[in-house]
């Protein structure tokens, strides 16, 4: 499910602003070149192929300890949620009347779990975890969801190899417009 994206068709709309576009093809020489070292400090995203994953590693056991100390207060001892997002379970519910979307049941890529924890968790101290901590937390969440075994150790090599249960659960490209209304004007629906 790569989901190719179609940008909106704004051909007609563009006419409104046709006379109000900056000239194309000019190098203004504004701003500073970003050196490789500078870029490296900002370049934190992790894609499904594992590019950009840092050195370090973490095991399920390390993750269990970390989770109890830094995560459980918000996400529950078993990842059951309350007060914050539920992180465990929900498999088989996606086509039911009450779908439960979690890391285990819904997320397509394990790299996204690493990436998100690294940028935003723990909510009360975001960005404070070391890469090994993040690998460990990810390992424990995947373990709780039955995706990796209890002895799993995650690092830049093993994490991208984890196959998530719902990896094929996403579809694209955007099939909309998908609902049709005939725009009846008089005595409709009789």
């Amino acid at each position, binding site marked *: 499910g*790569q*989901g190719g*994206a179609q*940008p*909106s*068709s*704004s051909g*007609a*709309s*563009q006419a*409104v*602003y046709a006379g109000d576009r*900056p000239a*194309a*093809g*000019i*190098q*203004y020489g*504004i*701003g*500073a*070149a*970003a050196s490789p070292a*500078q*870029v490296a400090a*900002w*370049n934190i*995203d992790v*894609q499904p192929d594992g590019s950009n994953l840092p050195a370090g590693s973490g095991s399920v056991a390390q993750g269990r300890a970390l989770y109890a100390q830094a995560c459980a207060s918000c996400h529950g001892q078993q990842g059951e949620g309350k007060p914050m997002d539920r992180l465990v379970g929900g498999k088989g519910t*996606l086509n039911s*009347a009450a*779908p439960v979307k979690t*890391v285990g049941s*819904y*997320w*397509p890529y394990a790299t*996204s*779990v690493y990436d998100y924890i690294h*940028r*935003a968790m723990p*909510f009360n101290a*975001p*960005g404070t975890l070391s890469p090994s901590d993040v690998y460990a937390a990810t390992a424990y969440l995947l373990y709780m969801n039955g995706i990796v075994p209890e002895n799993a150790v995650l690092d830049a090599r093993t994490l991208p190899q984890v196959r998530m249960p719902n990896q094929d*659960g*996403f*579809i694209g*490209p*955007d099939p909309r*417009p*998908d*609902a*049709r*209304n005939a725009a*009846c*004007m*008089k*005595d*409709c*629906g*009789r």
Partner: protein
Amino acid sequence: GVLALDGLHGAAAADRAASAGAAAWTHEQGKPILSPPYGLPSPHEADVVRRPTDLTPTPLSSWSFTPLQDLDGIITPNGLFFERHHAGVPAISPDAHRLVIHGMVDRPLMLSMDDILRLPSVSRIHFLECSGNTLTEWKGPKEKTVQGTHGLLSCAEWTGVPLSVLAEQVGLRPGVKWMLAEGADAAVMDRSIPIAKVLDDALLVYSQNGERLRPEQGYPLRLLLPGYEGNMNIKWLRRLKFSDQPFYTREETSKYSDLMPDGKARLFTFDMEAKSVITSPSGGMRIGAPGFREIRGLAWSGRGRISRVDVSVDGGRNWQQARLQSPVLPKCLTRFRMMWNWQGGPAILQSRCIDETGYVQPTLAELVAVRGLNSVYHLNAIQSWGVAQNGEVTNVHA
């Protein structure tokens, strides 16, 4: 107030008014200029404020709604622009803030705010809507007012640098298909944007309705993707990275994907489809006397201009074309208006818009027929307001 159309203010006020030629304020000096230097609304409008959702466990990752029932025209005042944050509103120093542009480019750049202000700019009036707007209304009427049902919607004049200009400055390499946009808030919010959108009408925005962005709207810098779901318009923007692949960030997978009845989820549904709503009369109001009054509402489409809005006062049996506020702009709120001579009986008010692609805003039944009840986002169905014999207006499904 939220509830005020007419009839709310007692006979006492009307009596006082009969001698308004002798009103106190006509006989004493008012406040001096600059009371205060940055002005505020009248105390009589104190109920015109953003209001919170009751669905989130923390106000740090939460949203607040624009009071659409109190607004006219198409501009949303900055103080009433809807909010959605994932780690609160950061207090960013514009002098220290930097934007880094890198990835599949020839000349990676680091830009200060002063740099960005020197570049060629444009201003555009565009709406911004959270794709979670109206999410409470799938299974039945839930929120009482249009602020609750549709208030994750606002509109402003945005000023900034076309992203096409920035792309030229850094030089995109062959094969670029996506751009990651990333914020400097503590959620380090990020989304993947298709390159065609980036080069079409995306803007690097620093001003909103004339003045610099408000903190809640991304001060000092945000992305604007006209007509795309709100979450992608990354606030507090600190980084743009060009790539040949999407990034599958948490927001675009775990959150802003649309679950279908078969358990598959639509990924990368970006356009905000055509939608409209009557803002007056609307839920929670009470209309006073029978007779003429103007029905007013908003229509918008992420795919271009609104070309027509129809209004029904009998629950969708018969429709009449409404007047559209001119000029009608693409990917912008369009105010519609229609006079209505209320006879005093029960009525059901609806609006239905058509955009320049020919797309017609669907009924909820038409939407649910194809998407089921689990997709959370992108509810753009026709909204109904019931008017009771006594003039009370409520949220109904019709």
